[in-house]
């Protein structure tokens, strides 16, 4: 009987909940660690019966219990009816006969020697928010950082994270979108060169070395349990986090029982603001780091643009705006509500300027295209709401085609406007809403930006 734990297994498994068939160790080793009770084995999907004697399933990895997301079938492996979860299917199927492994041995002790190489200077508002965030963390309270687009949200996190790292704590920065994680990774690696950092997202290869600071999409947190002493959720209102209850549960599950979960966003939901205000755990930054106001949206009517584009005519106002950007040598983004319409418009625009492309969620070259826009190779990009947040392109001009469409909510419009004027050298720029009628969301976005500018200007 073995009674010492294997360090490599501990490093891989501690804080995680892992599919037995996907673990990168030999079966004998895992068996031995299970026998010595360093690893707990649980069933992938558990079944209970309700009062009508119907089966009710629950996935023990992602905690999904929406019954329509389970499929039952006759399983050749367990030779019986077996249910699997379709919610977290893409991370490797978990079914009734799947074994999930949880580390029960001693926890990893992380080292306390770290270095903070971030050279920048916080504005007084950032500094205040950073201190307040630290205070909430010490009191184990969840804190909300409500900061406008371009306020410098990531920098606010550096000091509190540095302090936690020096206490040997394990930390996670999570975001619903992979683009945000990809943008954060180099910044954190530069700031904390001595800290083991892992970036986890769909398609990234898992490392065996235990990361003290984990940057992860919220989906990846399905695979953690009681792992972190603090979690910072960036862009907390982004799709699909707010729409998907299991992602919110995943964040809860990944945190240790009393660990604080902080939220950082430019467009918090009403409920989030209310809760944070009640708990006196909110920091508001209504001003951008360079001190200039947020660009206000400008309404431009573009009547019957859908019919026009489908007929092969690019509306005159849109053509003129694009040509203006090209003449002034300003990179531009045009947001569309629908891929189909965007792809109809693309060849019409390419007729007078071929160096323009279109991107959407399923687009493989998304990262390269955004980079090509930054370095001037492309004149502009057409995009869906996928680029609404997380990206910074200096001196970019922005237009929305069909701002009245329901996909352009108040927060989507505020985020889109937040792409404009982020650099100190070019703090202004166009933020045009081409529309076929004005919606409440457009007016609310305008009102909120106005209000933030007023509050920010009076500070």
């Amino acid at each position, binding site marked *: 009987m073995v009674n010492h734990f294997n360090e490599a297994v501990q490093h891989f498994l501690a804080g995680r909940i892992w599919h037995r068939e996907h673990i990168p160790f030999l079966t004998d080793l895992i068996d031995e660690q299970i026998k010595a009770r360093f690893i707990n084995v649980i069933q992938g999907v558990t079944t209970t019966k309700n009062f009508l004697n119907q089966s009710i399933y629950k996935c023990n990895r992602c905690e999904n219990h929406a019954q329509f997301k389970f499929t039952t079938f006759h399983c050749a492996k367990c030779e019986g009816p*077996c249910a699997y979860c379709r919610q977290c299917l893409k991370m490797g199927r978990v079914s009734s006969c799947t074994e999930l492994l949880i580390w029960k041995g001693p926890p990893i002790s992380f080292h306390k020697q770290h270095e903070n190489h971030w050279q920048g200077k916080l504005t007084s508002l950032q500094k205040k928010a950073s201190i307040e965030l630290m205070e909430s963390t010490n009191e184990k309270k969840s804190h909300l950082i409500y900061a406008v687009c371009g306020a410098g949200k990531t920098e606010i996190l550096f000091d509190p994270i540095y302090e936690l790292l020096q206490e040997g704590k394990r930390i996670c920065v999570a975001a619903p979108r992979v683009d945000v994680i990809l943008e954060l990774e180099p910044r954190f690696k530069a700031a904390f060169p001595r800290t083991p950092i892992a970036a986890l997202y769909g398609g990234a290869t898992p490392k065996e070395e235990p990361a003290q600071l984990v940057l992860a999409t919220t989906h990846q947190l399905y695979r953690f349990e009681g792992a972190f002493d603090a979690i910072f959720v960036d862009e907390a209102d982004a799709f699909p986090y707010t729409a998907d209850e299991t992602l919110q549960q995943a964040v809860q599950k990944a945190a240790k029982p009393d660990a604080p979960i902080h939220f950082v966003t430019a467009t918090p939901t009403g409920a989030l603001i209310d809760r944070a205000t009640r708990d006196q755990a909110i920091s508001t930054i209504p001003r951008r780091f360079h001190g200039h106001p947020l660009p206000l949206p400008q309404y431009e009517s573009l009547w019957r643009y859908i019919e026009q584009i489908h007929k092969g005519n690019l509306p005159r106002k849109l053509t003129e705006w694009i040509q203006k950007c090209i003449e002034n040598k300003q990179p531009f983004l045009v947001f569309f509500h629908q891929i189909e319409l965007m792809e109809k418009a693309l060849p019409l625009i390419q007729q007078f300027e071929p160096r323009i492309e279109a991107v959407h969620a399923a687009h493989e070259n998304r990262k390269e295209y955004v980079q090509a826009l930054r370095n001037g190779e492309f004149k502009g990009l057409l995009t869906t709401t996928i680029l609404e947040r997380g990206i910074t392109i200096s001196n970019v001009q922005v237009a929305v085609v069909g701002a009245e469409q329901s996909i352009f909510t108040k927060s989507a419009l505020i985020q889109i406007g937040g792409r404009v004027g982020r650099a100190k050298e070019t703090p202004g720029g166009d933020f045009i809403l081409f529309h076929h009628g004005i919606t409440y969301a457009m007016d609310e976005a305008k009102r909120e930006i106005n209000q933030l500018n007023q509050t920010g200007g009076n500070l």
Partner: protein
Amino acid sequence: MKACLLCEAILPALPTWQALIGIDEQKIICESCSKSFERADSIDKTTDLSSVTSLYAYNEAMQSYLHQFKFLQDIALAAVFKKELQTILKHQKNIVPIPVHPEKRMTRTFGQVEALLDYAKIPYLNLLEKLDQTAMGEKTRQERLRTKPLFQLKPNIQIKHETYTLIDDIYTTGTTLNHAAKVLRKAGAKHVEAVTLIRA
């Protein structure tokens, strides 16, 4: 609320008379996903098969479908081509699915061809046994053409002097289907045809 099995978009629930009296065909994938599959409707002839009919082309949408179905083991996707399979197999008797090796079946937890037929409620005969367990996709074309017999008849099976229809998910070089057809013909089948979901 129902979502598309492939892209998770919410399926619009339109009130129809058919739905009201319960004879409506329940949609399980959305319009744009079903449009992304490209019909091939190709018919080939080989030495051992009088015809091989394939329903779809092996385009990008089909590749990711097959990936999710077979490698992510999402057996629910067996229902996606239910109607198309029912239509093409309406008048066929003696339907024989190409089997997977028992070990492969254990790790995948189901046989994909049987699952396609089960979900379409098409009755079939399990006549064959897979011998070699390397997947065809892992071999080169030359290796495939000169491999040893891939199938044998299950014990105590009588083959009638009739037409048999083999079913497989994908038709690439035809080696798998030819091997299976040979076994059936040797045992006394009059003709052997094949229907596959995909023509690669």
